[in-house]
């Protein structure tokens, strides 16, 4: 039987140790030196600067659009990772949030004439509320039911709109206003992603974040601590669905259109695949996963729905072989080193 941390080769074995600097910066010890601060800050700085520099570095308009799409998916993936690894709820239907946000923004814009600067926030909050309400019945139940219902909502919503021919039917709502300026469109989205990432990272370490993690680890104990599980799960679902609705509203303005395909499978599968590949539980991993998967998906667009086959299979492979994901591996490497030790 092979143990991941211990491999016997002749008379030596591999051991993993935390780097000295990690040990001193852990826990509540004060950060006292520039070196330590640098150790903690460097990855974050690289990330932020890298992301912000992208639109300047990428040459063509087409690829800049791809970056925007990556950000859209990133918001979904952030929501998925947050719910799955920090609250214990697996949402299989990111498309539901995108569609809800997209339709609300489109309606607000075409029927009520509100500009993007208003439609997006309203769609975020209202969409989040609607999605949370619709998902509320499954919250007291076992996680499986949440997964089933989130899986089904986008499929069902698409059929309902098609069948009842409301909200634009199969054609969708066209004529949605776009952003006044390409740079606003790009940088607005990038900033939103960065703020969401760091905001969520902060949140999970705040007191309320601990409650969420408690709900995931041991919900009986949380109940015994006089806290209502349903209430906190609802808050978490609201946060994640708001992120998704935000993404959907933004997307409606980017494409100047909102339709059934916003409920498409891509939006449900890619966040999951991105999280699994990028490393669940890190909140950064899913974003990295999106940066990898979405460009590939764009390249594969020529092959039609084959790309869905492609990421479904990758998803299955990762789940079945239970890899930890890129960021988890990277974080581990950053904080630990391995060496051979004589037994």
């Amino acid at each position, binding site marked *: 039987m092979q143990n991941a941390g211990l491999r016997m080769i002749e008379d030596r074995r591999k051991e993993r140790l935390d780097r000295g600097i990690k040990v001193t910066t852990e826990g509540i010890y004060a950060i006292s030196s520039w070196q330590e601060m640098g150790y903690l800050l460097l990855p974050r700085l690289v990330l932020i600067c890298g992301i912000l520099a992208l639109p300047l570095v990428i040459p063509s308009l087409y690829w800049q659009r791809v970056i925007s799409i990556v950000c859209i998916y990133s918001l979904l993936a952030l929501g998925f990772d947050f719910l799955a690894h920090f609250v214990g709820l697996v949402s299989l239907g990111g498309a539901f949030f995108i569609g809800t946000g997209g339709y609300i923004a489109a309606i607000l814009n075409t029927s009520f004439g509100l500009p993007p600067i208003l439609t997006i926030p309203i769609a975020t909050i209202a969409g989040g509320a609607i999605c949370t309400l619709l998902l509320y019945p499954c919250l007291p139940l076992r996680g499986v039911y949440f997964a089933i219902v989130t899986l*089904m909502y986008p499929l069902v919503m698409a059929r309902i709109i098609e069948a009842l021919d409301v909200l634009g039917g199969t054609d969708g709502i066209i004529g949605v206003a776009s952003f006044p300026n390409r740079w606003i469109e790009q940088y607005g989205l990038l900033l939103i992603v960065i703020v969401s990432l760091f905001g969520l990272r902060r949140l999970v370490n705040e007191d309320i974040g601990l409650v969420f993690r408690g709900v995931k680890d041991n919900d009986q104990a949380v109940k015994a601590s006089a806290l209502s599980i349903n209430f906190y799960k609802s808050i978490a679902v609201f946060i994640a669905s708001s992120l998704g609705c935000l993404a959907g509203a933004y997307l409606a303005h980017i494409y100047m259109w909102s339709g059934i395909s916003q409920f498409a499978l891509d939006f449900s599968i890619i966040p999951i695949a991105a999280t699994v590949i990028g490393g669940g539980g890190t909140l950064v991993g899913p974003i990295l996963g999106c940066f990898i998967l979405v460009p590939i998906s764009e390249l594969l667009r020529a092959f039609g729905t084959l790309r869905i086959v492609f990421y479904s299979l990758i998803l299955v492979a990762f789940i079945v072989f239970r890899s930890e994901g890129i960021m988890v591996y990277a974080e581990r490497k950053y904080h630990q080193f391995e060496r051979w030790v004589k037994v």
Partner: protein
Amino acid sequence: MDILIYGIINSISLALIAIGFALVYGISRLANFAHGALYVVNGFIVWSILNILHINYLLSIILSLIIIGLIGAAIYQFILIRVRGMAISEIIASYAIGLAMLEGFRWGGFKGMTYTLPVFIRGSIEIAGIPVDFQRILLVLIGGLVVLFLWLFTHYNRIGLALKGMAQDERAAMMLGIDSDKMALIAMGLGSILAGLAAVVILPMGNIVVEAGYDKLIMAIAVCIVGGLGSWVGAVIAAFLIGFAQIITVKYIASHFHMVIALLAIIITLILRPSGLFGRQKELEERV
């Protein structure tokens, strides 16, 4: 009167579709989200064998059932077995496989009017003034037979009893020497065959479309949740409830409401009685 007849037909077709899913879940607690995909894929397999290899229809059907059963078993043996026990991973993995199959066929160009299966017997008769074609009558008969057969199988046959034992208490069954993995394999195979059977009987009434994969999956889940996950008696009864509700709504309110009813059924069940009509899982709410 026509409500009664169409209601029965719709209900039995729902029951046929759902029973494969219910079987797999009931025996091995596996939520097989590739169920809808297996349904559609079987349709394509029959079509291929029939029109490309030009084999006799009945033989094509039998061959396809064997193939789909093997595919289902293979899905278990090579993929699901590795995520056994982790409910969410099972759902994601089986859904992803189903997705890969369905979208793969869609990419392969399998769409359009040419993809149909011939009905078994042409023509129709009148029952109480309403024309009903033979295919639909066959549907009711076959559906009824399947349910009856399953009931007999799980009550009188040794393997069937073993499956029923697993359904009731997995650990006890394991202690008595019943191999859980082998049972799950058989369950997946059987469930796939049932999905294929449903396809073979229902698809001749229309085209074979990839969308049906998703639709039938939703229907199967709706029926099983309302009936109670794990109970196939519940599934049959739920199929009738939902089936009649759909027909009545279509007649009196508007068409295309199948989906809405299915979704509503799920939501209402989850709010009022999460374990479904006959669900044994009170553990949904009570866990210590």
